[in-house]
């Protein structure tokens, strides 16, 4: 365990940014968002950035390759360039856990090399959630925000930031800044953990459980009449999907340039009427079906294929941004076992 005074954080970021591209949540007028560190930037106190750190590994739009045409000739060009190491700082535990969800999808064979490369170069520095929001429900999925993981875990207590490397990558980062860190014991951190756990007990969604969901529940849940009511006012926008740290659907598209084509991928949303459109049309014709797909995937299909792991981490972003305030919590309460 290491520590550094909060007031010395600028020095830490300065030091880190000599070697790495450092990204950290910074407050903006419209909310917190990840930003590449520049001198003077201050770490946001807010837990949730509007968009999750998923963007660094699986960007909303990502060029994949290029086709260059000359007359009737076509060349295929790999446009990937070597990636440098980078640090994403201040990742909450729910967001850290989202990478487990994403890794299952992108790193299982055949691995997605675009994603894999970024994962290999990215360092996650997590932080404990000292001040959870009313919309937080990570505990529902067994995530402990007082005990963050990642390559390095951090806690803030009493004007001090405590750091604990968890991986080799983390150790490597610590070695860069070891000059400005001091060794510390676990006492303060344990106290902070306790404090956080007490707050967690006061959260309004503390009793939300996954009971009634998970692998093997398809038949039970698929035709439940509640879906109609839950989905009836869904606008079919992609807000929930695009702020979600675990949503991983994308579309591959071609953009016609002046002398060829750029093939890129971009996030897609199962809420969209055009999602997974095939030559015969869309498999899910109504918003009810699309709505159901999103939650069934998170709560049933994904766990079924990934050893029981849910593809929701309880970050609460969708609770905050859905235009009509319909969300996974309301779905779980309406359909789940003991969520009265």
């Amino acid at each position: 365990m290491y520590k550094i005074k909060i007031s010395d954080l600028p020095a830490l970021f300065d030091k880190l940014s000599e070697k790495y591209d450092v990204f950290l949540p910074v407050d903006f007028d419209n909310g917190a968002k990840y930003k590449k560190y520049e001198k003077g930037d201050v770490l946001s106190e807010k837990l949730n950035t509007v968009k999750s750190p998923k963007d660094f590994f699986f960007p909303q739009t990502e060029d994949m390759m290029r086709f260059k045409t000359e007359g009737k000739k076509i060349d295929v060009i790999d446009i990937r360039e070597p990636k440098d190491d980078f640090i994403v700082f201040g990742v909450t535990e729910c967001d850290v856990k989202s990478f487990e969800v994403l890794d299952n999808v992108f790193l299982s064979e055949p691995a997605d090399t675009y994603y894999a490369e970024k994962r290999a170069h990215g360092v996650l520095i997590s932080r404990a959630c000292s001040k959870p929001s009313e919309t937080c429900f990570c505990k529902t999925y067994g995530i402990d925000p007082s005990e963050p993981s990642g390559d390095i875990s951090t806690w803030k207590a009493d004007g001090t930031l405590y750091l604990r490397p968890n991986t080799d990558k983390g150790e490597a980062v610590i070695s860069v800044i070891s000059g400005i860190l001091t060794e510390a014991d676990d006492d303060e951190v344990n106290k902070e953990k306790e404090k956080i756990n007490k707050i967690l007990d006061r959260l309004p969604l503390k009793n939300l459980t996954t009971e009634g969901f998970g692998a093997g529940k398809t038949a039970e849940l698929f035709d439940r009449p509640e879906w109609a009511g839950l989905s009836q006012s869904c606008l079919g926008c992609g807000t929930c999907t695009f702020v979600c740290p675990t949503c991983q659907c994308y579309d591959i598209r071609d953009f016609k340039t002046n002398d060829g084509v750029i093939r890129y991928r971009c996030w897609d949303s199962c809420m969209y009427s055009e999602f997974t459109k095939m030559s015969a049309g869309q498999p899910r014709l109504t918003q009810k079906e699309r709505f159901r797909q999103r939650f069934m995937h998170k709560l049933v299909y994904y766990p079924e294929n990934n050893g029981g792991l849910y593809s929701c981490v309880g970050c609460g972003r969708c609770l905050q941004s859905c235009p009509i305030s319909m969300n996974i919590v309301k779905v779980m309460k309406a359909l789940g076992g003991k969520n009265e």
Partner: protein
Amino acid sequence: MQKISRFDIINRLKDLLADGNVDRVLGWKKGEFRYDVTPHVFTSAQELEADFVWGDFCGANFSKYLIKETAKSDKKVAVLLKPCDTYSFNQLLTEHRFDREKVYAVGVACDGMADIFKIKKITGDGISDIKENGEDLDVYTIYDEKPVKIKKTDVLSERCLSCKSKKHAAYDELLGGDGDVLDSNRFDEVAKIEAMTEEERYAFWQGELSRCIRCNACRDVCPACTCEKCVFDNPNSGMENKSPANEFEEKLFHIIRAFHVAGRCTDCGECSRVCPQRIPLHLLNRKFIKDINAFYGEYQAGEVVGSRAPLVDFDKEDVEPKNAVGKEDK
């Protein structure tokens, strides 16, 4: 504090259901917290009693839902409409988007809606309850026993700060009385941007629009965006796209969207309300409204059913583009 109480509204709605005038009600349903209210179709008095809410977070405009809702059954649906919602209601009727005969419109008086984002800016996260207390809101958090007292006027939604009308443009009956068309200051923000230099304007919008994540919430909530298939979803349109791939795509989407609703946008402000990135999208639509008023005479979309939108109309003496554009430039 809203003028009309939840109790009065529920009682009237129960009567309507009981009379058999309507068999369902489009209203606001309570959520997990005070502020996460969801549009919902209520079908019984019990359901209304249990879940109906009316208060400072009932911002959602139901007009657009009527397209879908009226197509479901031959029975009438009752809908609750705030004054600003009634303009969208009329505009949709002008565009033949639903059958007026299948709707029973209940106008509700509105004293403006609160913006949870503004509240959280003051109180921070962890809100456990919000209670209306006269002109104030008492906001309780899990971090403090005592509430934070906030003046409602300090956390009013942007659109409500420049409310154009407390008068209902359409209704079958009113609850809480009717107000007046207001002499609003809604074009001040537009004028402020117009007064910037070209470079400043560019930088301003660059900053705003670069945040767009193309979630389509603005479009999907917009009562004027009722196309069967949006050009941005249609591969044949030549501008279909799913992502804000770059600056150009961001601008293209928002310019075309604003243009498509120009003359049809009633300025209900839903686009800005729902934007997860809090881009002031209404300032694009309002620019068109301001220009239309200046170039072609005052026009309020949705004020009257059947009025002819300025872009499908003309006057032989209309101003020339070169004389119209950028007169306010420095």
